[in-house]
């Protein structure tokens, strides 16, 4: 099978590095993809479940722009709604009626929502949720899960990272995922001091297997939060609308006080949302929080179209089913080559890992070999399915994966044997 090269990406990166810190900073940094030489850096155009890089290479995309793409790139329904709105108004003096319509839509769609608030990025609303929790409780401390990711505000980052000061993380208590006893201990050790508990619906740490909640975990967390007056915040930015249209908490059967949405909300148009319970509406109102572009109407129109379409086609079920077909094919292919490909998380946003090599180096090589054959896989992060991934895409992906398994087998021989 032909493999790709990326001369244009690499040339463009040199220009980028001259004028932009890191060249491509943040989560799109090529540094996360190992080996770097197997990956494209710059995308030229995209359609459906595919994108094409600046070298003209075609990829079936299993990262979906790290989650925002959910109905397929260039989705005609969403794009039409967005462009129609752009012709009318976008960033103008005054809020758009689309904002009200979108808030009403979310309140109707999400059982835990009595109100909605809009911003741009996921970090905007996770930060807002924590401010609301503090405003509502008059407390300082926030509990979060070690290895969890909620954005890049100083309190969200690990201690020691550049630009942080000690005070940024003094009031953050990091707990182990699924460790309810640990949460109980934290509450006992900090009586009346914990404002909020923030976590993703299930744990999706980079470089490690995803972990689903143990039976009863969320229900116990919810009960303790209620008892102690702690605001329960779900960061549904990554999982949102890929498990359940009513919010991922519905999938796991519990009710948070605040839910943060972003990524899949508008199929790539720039918007995030915080929804919450009526009990916190006044506290949300008391927190002053805004941004220059938070009233843009075009992303709101896109979100309305995206959510309506996802609801109409039962998007979460389509993605869970497509993910199941993909994962069955990949794990079977792995087995036929003598590898154990472990799947964790749920099929619409799975994390995969070849277990034959604990260091991940073999897995990194396989993901790189797949990518340079046209199936864009990362080795460090959960993947994302979309409703645009067709059976043909999945069949081609399995064919690519099979060739990539053969390539790593040829490279390593029996060094990594089947367990």
């Amino acid at each position, binding site marked *: 099978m032909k493999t790709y090269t990326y001369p244009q990406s690499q040339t463009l990166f040199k220009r980028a590095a001259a004028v932009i810190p*890191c060249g491509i900073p943040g989560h799109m940094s090529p540094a996360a993809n190992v080996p770097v030489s197997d990956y494209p850096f710059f995308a030229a155009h995209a359609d459906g479940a595919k994108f094409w890089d600046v070298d003209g290479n075609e990829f079936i995309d299993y990262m979906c722009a790290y989650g925002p793409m959910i109905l397929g790139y260039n989705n005609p329904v969403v794009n039409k709604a967005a462009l129609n709105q752009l012709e009318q108004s976008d960033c103008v003096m005054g809020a758009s009626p689309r904002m009200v319509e979108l808030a009403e839509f979310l309140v109707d769609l999400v059982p835990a929502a009595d109100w909605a608030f809009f911003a741009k990025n996921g970090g905007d609303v996770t930060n807002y949720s924590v401010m609301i929790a503090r405003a509502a409780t008059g407390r300082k401390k926030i509990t979060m899960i*070690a290895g969890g990711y909620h954005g890049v505000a100083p309190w969200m980052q690990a201690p020691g990272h550049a630009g942080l000061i000690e005070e940024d993380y003094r009031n953050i208590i990091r707990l182990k995922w699924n460790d309810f006893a640990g949460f109980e201990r934290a509450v006992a050790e900090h009586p009346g001091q914990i404002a909020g508990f923030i976590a993703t619906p299930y744990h999706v740490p980079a470089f490690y297997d995803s972990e689903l909640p143990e039976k009863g975990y969320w229900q116990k967390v919810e009960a303790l939060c209620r008892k102690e007056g702690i605001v329960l915040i779900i960061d549904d930015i990554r999982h949102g609308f890929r498990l359940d249209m009513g919010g991922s908490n519905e999938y796991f059967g519990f009710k948070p006080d605040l839910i943060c949405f972003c990524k899949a909300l508008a199929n790539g148009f720039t918007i995030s949302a915080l929804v919450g319970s009526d009990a916190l509406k006044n506290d949300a109102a008391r927190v002053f929080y805004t941004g220059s572009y938070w009233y843009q109407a075009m992303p709101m129109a896109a979100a309305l179209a995206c959510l309506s379409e996802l609801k109409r086609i039962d998007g979460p079920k389509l993605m869970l089913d497509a993910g199941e077909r993909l994962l069955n094919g990949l794990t079977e292919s792995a087995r036929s080559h003598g590898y154990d490909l472990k799947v964790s998380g749920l099929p619409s946003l799975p994390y995969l890992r070849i277990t034959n090599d604990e*260091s991940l180096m073999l897995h990194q090589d396989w993901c790189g070999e797949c990518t340079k054959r046209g199936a864009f896989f990362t080795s460090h992060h959960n993947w994302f399915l979309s409703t645009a991934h067709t059976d043909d895409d999945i069949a081609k992906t399995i064919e690519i994966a099979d060739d990539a398994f053969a390539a790593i087998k040829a490279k390593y021989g029996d060094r990594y044997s089947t367990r």
Partner: protein
Amino acid sequence: MTHQLIKAHLNLHAVLQNLEDLVEHDPQTAALAEDWRISVQFTVKKGPRAFISFADGACQVGPGKCRRPSVILYFKSPEHLNRMMDGTANPIPLKGMTRLPFLAKEFPRATDRLEHFLKPTDELLADPDYLALNTRFSLSTAVFAVRELCLLDEVGQLNAAHIPKGTVLFKVLPDGPAMHLVFQRGDIEVVKGEAKQPSAVMLFKNQQVANDLLNGKGDAFTAIAAEDVMIRGRIPMIEAINPILDRIPLYLS
């Protein structure tokens, strides 16, 4: 743990450690130390201990006590040791008065040589031999310092708590130097040379790339994307070490 105490640990266990490599890799120091047979114990009140031992043309630097040292140097406090390292104070000799001439005249020739290699200028770095030694010492200082900071520095401890068991290899391609850190429950070991089965690797394309990064002249993300630096394996181990590396200049500027 005070700033001065952590700095004293770094001075003894990361900076002076370079004497081993200096004697091995710098011909001038090797010739100087060829016939030295002496061991020096450094004892700091309420602080770390370390020893330097010269014998058979080699140097050994280690933590803790030396068996039957020729000389014992005492420091009243960690700050006293740090001032000595900065050249503004003298140690208090407790044993080995007859060897004081060695300490006053011979030994400083080696430490001056080390200082020369630890304080690069652009002009000095233009010499490939100097570049190679400065790179070796910078890498060694950094890796030994990571161990100390993981154990002693508050931010280092917080980051180290998330580093799983395993080995992280740092290597300058193609032929080294290489060093690795072995993380075990509650302990961290620094080993010079290659690792057999590292959990994570950070490979520098060549001496120049390694030198630039170790001397803070470039950013790692750009270097990785440009394939000047290659990382593989359990990358969170490297990610957790990076903020610890950033702490070194707070103590050793």
